[in-house]
């Protein structure tokens, strides 16, 4: 149910974030675009504004993280060097989703569709937060908090942002054909 809302956030991001402009942008311009996308995604997630932290000198495999203590979202600055913005948008959508999870677990943010789906998901997240493991892959990969963050990023970026991008391109092609 919430996937539709996340797709809408992704669709709304597209007019504000042009992939062609990203390709042409200087490093400083890309940083501004990434920060603006972060702000927009946070607003779409009903999160208060909080500055994006860019981590420099990290291994490229690490795309981002969310610190539950400071509530800070960090993204690897090396992602800004990629001409395809998918990875940076995906990291922003994924890590900010962890901020949403924490706010719902702590009762800071209302649970959407609570009248229809109840508090089941948040109860699952609360239990999942206690089960985060440090030494094994499987338990973390299938932890409901991680599954939800990956799904949120897919809805927002693949099914929202890029779907809207394709729609705009088709519209432009149709206009050019007239």
């Amino acid at each position, binding site marked *: 149910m919430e996937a539709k809302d996340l797709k809408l956030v992704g669709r709304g991001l597209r007019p504000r974030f042009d992939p062609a402009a990203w390709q042409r942008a200087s490093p400083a311009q890309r940083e501004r675009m990434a920060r603006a996308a972060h702000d927009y995604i946070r607003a779409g997630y009903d999160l208060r504004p909080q500055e994006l932290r860019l981590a420099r000198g990290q291994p490229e*495999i*690490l*795309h*981002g993280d969310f610190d539950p203590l400071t509530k800070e979202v960090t993204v690897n600055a090396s992602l800004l060097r990629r001409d395809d913005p998918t990875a940076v948008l995906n990291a922003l959508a994924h890590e900010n989703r962890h901020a949403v999870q924490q706010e719902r677990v702590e009762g800071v943010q209302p649970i959407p569709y609570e009248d229809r789906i109840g508090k089941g998901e948040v109860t699952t997240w609360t239990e999942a937060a206690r089960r985060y493991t440090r*030494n*094994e*892959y*499987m338990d*973390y990969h299938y932890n409901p908090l991680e599954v939800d963050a990956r799904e949120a990023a897919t809805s927002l970026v693949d099914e929202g942002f890029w779907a809207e991008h394709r729609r705009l391109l088709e519209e432009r092609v149709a206009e050019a054909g007239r």
Partner: protein
Amino acid sequence: MSDASRSRDDRLRDDRQRLQSRLRAAQPALDEEEVRRVVARVLADPPARELAVAWADSGEMPAEPDVEGLNPATLIALFKPSVVLTALPDLLRDPARTLETFRHPSPGWRR
């Protein structure tokens, strides 16, 4: 018990011992229960078992399957052996999806 199944059991016991021994040496902070659980998970998956046993013998992971420069060898340089070993079954089946999880890792996974 037939000779074939006895031989299979002997091989499995031997693989388990070598892998447990290598894992204990590589990651001394793991407790015995974790060592046993990690090794049992890897041995239950034949393709993953083959890579894991090769790592136990040589101390090296292969560079395949590789997605955008990420593979078992690059992963084990950065993440705990227990994490990479338990990821091997998924990594061999669906490398792209598995590597997505390593891009957003648990804070405790780094070496």
